[in-house]
């Protein structure tokens, strides 16, 4: 038995509709330790969000888990009934989404939406729960929480709404917080505040975090270990510093080089950004072998013939590439 909180092994997700099936997530394995912040990085459509949804059992048809195991705290999540999953969600695993306005109920005061967590999962009375909600709102640094519990989501700013989401998510002290692009819809200065808040609250409670983002800066700021997903596969996993300072997969390296880096124009003048040629393949026609191979500048014939196996790297990292950086 390992000490990991979450173990995802060989996860496979497919879109099955009308007898046709398309693979969207292929053999994804990763684990998250207790108190660890793990980042899952990838572009839109790479399968990072649905991987997260499969963990909390929120996948909807036509998407389905077609293989692999999801182990949380020693329990097999795939074997749980709907009721068991519902109890787990919110209490042990909580999630915050990109756009708090669509995740919150517009017709209910935010205080009630927080209080609901205590009533549903902790068996508190509404009166008790209301007091706890004020406390929870204070914990996420919403000013004048006694007043703000009565506010409706539309009366709050984007940053305040995301604080409410965090208060709901952390209300029951979950073991795992899944954050799916939690700051993408926010202004930069608000983003910095929200990330700091999530980091501090999770560190204080020992909550593990699964952070999903396409923003490498956010991931570097928040996470200990990072997995890079491309077209449904995990192609590289490393401790955060190794990944960003010495990327091994050509996709990771290309991604880092393609972004303008703050301060580099001053030091080296304006250089043409290094592009990654081509576009992200669509689910309906993934290329054979390595899925990055058609865009890869290091590709060799073997890349389109076979799926690259896992190569171990120092510090518990791995990369799946025949021609990776050493």
């Amino acid at each position, binding site marked *: 038995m390992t000490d990991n909180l979450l173990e995802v092994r060989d996860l496979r997700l497919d879109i099955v509709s009308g007898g046709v099936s398309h693979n969207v997530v292929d053999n994804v394995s990763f684990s998250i330790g207790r108190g660890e912040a793990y980042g899952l990085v990838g*572009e839109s459509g790479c399968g990072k969000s649905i991987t997260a949804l499969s963990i909390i059992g929120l996948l909807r048809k036509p998407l389905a888990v077609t293989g692999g195991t999801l182990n949380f705290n020693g329990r097999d999540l795939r074997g749980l009934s709907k009721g068991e999953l519902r109890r787990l969600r919110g209490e042990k695993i909580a999630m915050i989404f990109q756009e708090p306005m669509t995740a919150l109920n517009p017709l209910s005061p935010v205080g009630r939406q927080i209080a609901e967590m205590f009533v549903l999962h902790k068996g508190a009375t509404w009166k008790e729960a209301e007091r706890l909600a004020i406390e929870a709102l204070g914990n996420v640094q919403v000013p004048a929480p006694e007043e703000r519990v009565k506010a409706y989501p539309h009366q709050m700013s984007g940053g305040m709404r995301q604080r409410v989401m965090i208060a709901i998510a952390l209300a029951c002290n979950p073991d795992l917080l899944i954050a799916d692009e939690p700051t993408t819809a926010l202004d*930069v*200065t608000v983003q910095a505040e929200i990330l700091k808040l999530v980091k501090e609250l999770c560190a204080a409670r020992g909550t593990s975090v699964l952070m999903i983002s396409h923003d490498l800066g956010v991931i570097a700021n928040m996470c200990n270990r990072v997995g890079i997903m491309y077209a449904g596969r995990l192609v590289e996993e490393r401790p955060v510093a190794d990944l960003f300072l010495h990327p091994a997969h050509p996709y990771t390296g290309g991604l880092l080089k393609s972004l303008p880096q703050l301060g580099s124009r001053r030091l080296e003048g304006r250089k043409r950004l290094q*592009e990654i040629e081509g576009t992200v393949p669509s689910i309906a026609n993934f290329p054979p072998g390595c899925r990055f191979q058609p865009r890869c500048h290091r590709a060799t014939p073997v890349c389109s013939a076979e799926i690259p196996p896992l190569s171990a790297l120092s510090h518990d990292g791995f990369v799946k590439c025949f021609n990776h950086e050493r």
Partner: protein
Amino acid sequence: MSDNNEPLVRVDNLSVHFPVRNGLFGRTKRTLRAVNELSLTLNKGECLSVVGESGCGKSTLALSILGLQEPTAGEIFFEGRSITGKAQPTRLERAGMAQMVFQDPYASLNPRQTIYTSLAAPLKLHGVKDRAEINRRIESMMQLVGLKPEQARRFPHEFSGGQRQRIGIARALILNPKVVVLDEPVSALDVSIRAQIINLLLELKERLDLSYIMISHDLSVVEHMSDRVAVMYFGQIVETGSWDRVFTDPQHPYTRRLIGAILDPVTELTGQSPVDTRETPEPPAGYDYYPREFGKHDVYSLPPASQLVALREDHSVRLIARG
């Protein structure tokens, strides 16, 4: 012809206010001040970036320059000619002056029209009647933005996000405008595609002698692309100057706050920020930076009198007299 000293675009004391009705039956009327006495200039061949957070008025400013938003007060000049008020040009004339590239190219292209139809419509409106001429211009425009001419027969949904943004750029450039307003041109795109579009925009600027006004909140992209930068906070410019002055030596606390909030992966890990944003430099004697406090701004009331003061050549900050 414009004389050499006249900038391409000059915004002079622009104010845009919106009446907002509130209260029971909309009886209380208030004025939302989106842009307050803002002045700026865009020189030929320049990329001027307007940065700021949502609600700061940067999009209202862009719409005014495009002629899509009537200013409450102030004037905008294009090559020395006023384009606001009584003397304003027709919409057709304006379309040849400035065009816009939108953030989400999918939302800005008609899904039921082929790319050809979308690109041909402005040409026809502007009096290009000859079929062969239209075909030739569309063909060369498609090549210019890195697409194949035959792809013009397709519909927007047949393209990827990056290709759609190329089409958005083609649509903006088909009338040969002198100014292109770029509204968050890469923020809706996949990370691995952004470099392609940024490179394309910089190339086109050189090749076609374009001038850009870029609206963005992504400061890494702004630093890479801009010649000059204007930082906006609630309807006013709080700091403006050449890109290197604003990024190397930011003076205003708000600019420093914005730059300090950038999450750059390498900076995060090495802890070496290219700019020390912790301590705000001393303002000139007798003055203080305006504003000093953030997040408490009232968009309905007139801000106190403050001025944009030049600290040195091509670098100004907003100051308020102490006392």
